[in-house]
C-alpha cells in the first residue's frame, strides 16, 4: 500500500484575508509576545473589514526557540492571553526556520478539515537578547551534537560548503552571490518594515563619508562589488561566504488570517487563495544525493504545484528563503524557475530584480528585511499577499501580470521545506 505519492488536495478551499508584520530589527524592550501583538495590530488595522475578537476560532504560532532565546517555554497560550483570545486553542509549532511555514500549513488543514472557519497563523522570534555567540550556539543546536558539532559545523559553514559545490559544478562566481545581496538590499531599502532598509550603495557611501570626516584614507570603491569584495569592509565568515552573504539576527513577528474560501467575502473583496501547499523533510546534508539542491524544496514545490494545478512557469513572483545569498540561487533552481546552474545567470540578467520577469524577494528577503527565524515563513506570505493585491507601495513588482505568487521556507539546512502557492482571486 504505497500512499506516499498519492495526489493530495485540501478538503475545502482556504483563503487569506488579512496580513500583518511587526517592525523587524533589534528591540531590547520587546518580548516575542509583544512582537506578535504588534504584527496582529498591523493586520487588523490593514484589513478591508473590521473583525471581532470572537471571530477567531483557533491559532497556530511558529517559534523556533523562545526556550533558549528568552528562557520562556509554552509561549503559545501566552500569546493568546496577550491578545485576549483565551480560551481558543492555540498551538506552538517548531520546525527551525520553517516554524511559521509549518504553522500556516496546520492552520490550513484545520480549516480544510471542516472544524474551523477562521484561523490565525503566524510566527515570532526574539533573538537579540543573547550576544551573537549565544545566538549562533542556539542555531547550531539544530546541527547533530554527536557527529557534526565536534567538526565545527556552523550554519554559514554549511551554506559555504553548498556555495563551493555550486561554484565547482556550475559557472557560479563570488560576484553572483554578492549580486543577490545587492538586489535584496535594493528591495529592502523600499520596505519600511525591513531591519536594513538601506541599499549596499548607501552603506558604501556612508562608510566613505565617515572615513573622510575622520581624516582617514577614503577607500577607492567605485561600485557595490568593489565594496563587497574588500576584505576589510566585508570579511569572510565561511569562505566563499562573506558577512554580507548572511542574513542578520532579528527580532520580529508575522501573522495572517486564514478563512474558509466560501466566507472570504465577508472579510474582503480581494482575498488571496491558498492554491497549493507542500511540505517535505530532507536528509541531513552529508546524506543528500547532491549538494547543489535541497531535495525537500524540490518535493515541497512539486506538491504545491500539483495541488494548485500549475507549473513553475506560471509563478509570477516569489519570496524564497535567502538565509544566505547562495540559498536564493539554489532555491530559484529547486523551484524550477531556472534550470540547474542557470540561477546565477538570471541574477546577472536582472531577471529576479523588482523590474525583472521573475521578481524574487521584493520584500528585501531575509537578507535585508531580516530573519526572525520563527516568523520568516509567514512573513514571506505577508509580502506576497500585499504584492498580489497591488498594495506593496514603492516596492510593488513592476511586471503587468501578478496573479500567482510563491513562498519557499526552509528549516535548518533543508531538513524541512514548506512551499505555498498563492493566487489572487
Amino acid at each position, binding site marked *: 500500500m504505497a500512499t506516499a505519492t498519492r495526489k493530495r488536495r485540501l478538503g475545502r478551499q482556504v483563503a487569506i484575508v488579512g496580513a500583518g508584520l511587526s517592525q523587524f530589527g533589534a528591540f531590547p524592550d520587546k518580548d516575542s509576545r509583544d512582537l506578535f501583538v504588534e504584527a496582529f495590530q498591523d493586520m487588523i488595522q490593514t484589513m478591508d473589514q473590521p473583525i471581532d475578537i470572537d471571530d477567531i476560532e483557533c491559532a497556530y504560532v511558529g517559534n523556533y526557540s523562545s526556550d533558549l532565546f528568552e528562557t520562556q517555554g509554552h509561549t503559545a497560550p501566552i500569546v493568546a492571553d496577550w491578545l485576549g483570545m483565551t480560551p481558543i486553542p492555540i498551538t506552538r509549532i517548531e520546525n527551525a526556520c520553517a516554524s511559521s511555514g509549518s504553522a500556516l500549513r496546520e492552520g490550513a488543514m484545520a480549516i480544510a478539515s471542516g472544524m474551523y472557519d477562521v484561523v490565525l497563523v503566524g510566527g515570532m522570534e526574539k533573538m537579540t537578547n543573547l550576544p551573537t555567540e549565544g545566538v549562533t550556539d542556539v542555531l547550531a543546536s539544530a546541527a547533530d551534537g554527536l*557527529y557534526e558539532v565536534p567538526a565545527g559545523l556552523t550554519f554559514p559553514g554549511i551554506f*559555504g*560548503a553548498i556555495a563551493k559545490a555550486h561554484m565547482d559544478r556550475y559557472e557560479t562566481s563570488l560576484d553572483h552571490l554578492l549580486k543577490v545581496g545587492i538586489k535584496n538590499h535594493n528591495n529592502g531599502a523600499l520596505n519600511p518594515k525591513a531591519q536594513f532598509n538601506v541599499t549596499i550603495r548607501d552603506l558604501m557611501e556612508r562608510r566613505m563619508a565617515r572615513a573622510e570626516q575622520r581624516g582617514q584614507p577614503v577607500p577607492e570603491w567605485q561600485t557595490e562589488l568593489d565594496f563587497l569584495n574588500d576584505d576589510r569592509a566585508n570579511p569572510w565568515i565561511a569562505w566563499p*561566504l562573506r558577512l554580507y552573504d548572511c542574513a542578520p539576527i532579528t527580532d520580529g513577528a508575522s501573522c495572517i488570517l486564514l478563512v474558509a474560501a466560501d466566507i472570504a467575502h465577508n472579510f474582503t473583496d480581494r482575498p488571496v487563495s491558498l492554491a497549493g501547499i507542500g511540505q517535505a523533510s530532507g536528509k541531513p546534508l552529508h546524506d543528500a544525493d547532491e549538494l547543489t539542491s535541497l531535495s525537500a524544496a524540490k518535493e515541497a514545490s512539486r506538491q504545491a504545484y500539483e495541488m494548485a494545478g500549475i507549473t513553475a512557469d506560471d509563478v509570477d513572483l516569489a519570496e524564497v528563503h535567502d538565509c544566505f545569498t547562495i540559498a536564493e540561487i539554489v532555491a530559484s533552481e529547486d523551484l524550477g524557475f531556472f534550470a540547474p546552474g542557470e540561477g546565477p545567470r538570471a541574477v546577472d540578467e536582472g531577471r529576479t530584480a523588482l523590474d525583472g520577469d521573475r521578481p524574487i524577494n521584493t520584500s528585501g528577503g531575509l537578507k535585508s528585511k531580516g530573519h526572525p527565524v520563527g516568523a520568516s515563513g509567514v512573513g514571506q506570505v505577508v509580502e506576497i499577499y500585499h504584492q498580489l493585491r497591488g498594495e506593496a507601495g514603492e516596492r510593488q513588482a513592476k511586471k503587468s501580470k501578478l496573479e500567482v505568487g510563491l513562498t519557499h521556507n526552509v528549516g535548518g539546512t533543508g531538513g524541512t521545506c514548506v512551499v505555498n502557492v498563492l493566487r489572487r482571486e
Partner: protein
Amino acid sequence: MPDWNKPLPTVVGETRAYWDACRRGQLLIQHCGQCGEYQFYPRGICAHCWTENPGWVAASGKGTVWTYTVTYQNRTPGFDQGPYVLALVELEEGVRMFSNIVECDPREVSIGMAVEVTFQRATDQISVPYFKPAG
C-alpha cells in the same frame, strides 16, 4: 594530553561502539547484513530496510573531499583560533561525514582531493576523527 576545548559528543547507547573504536584508532560504519547498505550516522535500525542492529565494519579510512568551506568565524571555544577547513568527506564505502581537513594549508584543499582519516585524542574517552591529505 593536549589542551582540548572544542565541544565533545555525549556518547550514548548505540553510538558507543563508534566512539570506542575511534579511541582505538579505527573508523567504524554500519553495514546492514540484510540489504547490504552502508549507513552513517550509526543507529539502532537500518534506515533502508528496518533490520534491527545493523552490523559494524571498519571503514578503510580513505575517501575524497566532496565539498568544503574555510570557516573564518566560529566563536565556539576551540574553533575561534583562525580559519579551519570544514569538509564533507566521502568515504570509499560511499557514506559521507562532516569533518575537518588538517595537516595542510586550507588553500591546498580541493573538491575530489584524496584524504585519509587521522584521529586526534581529546580526552581519555574521546578521539575525534579528522582527515588529512592521503599520503
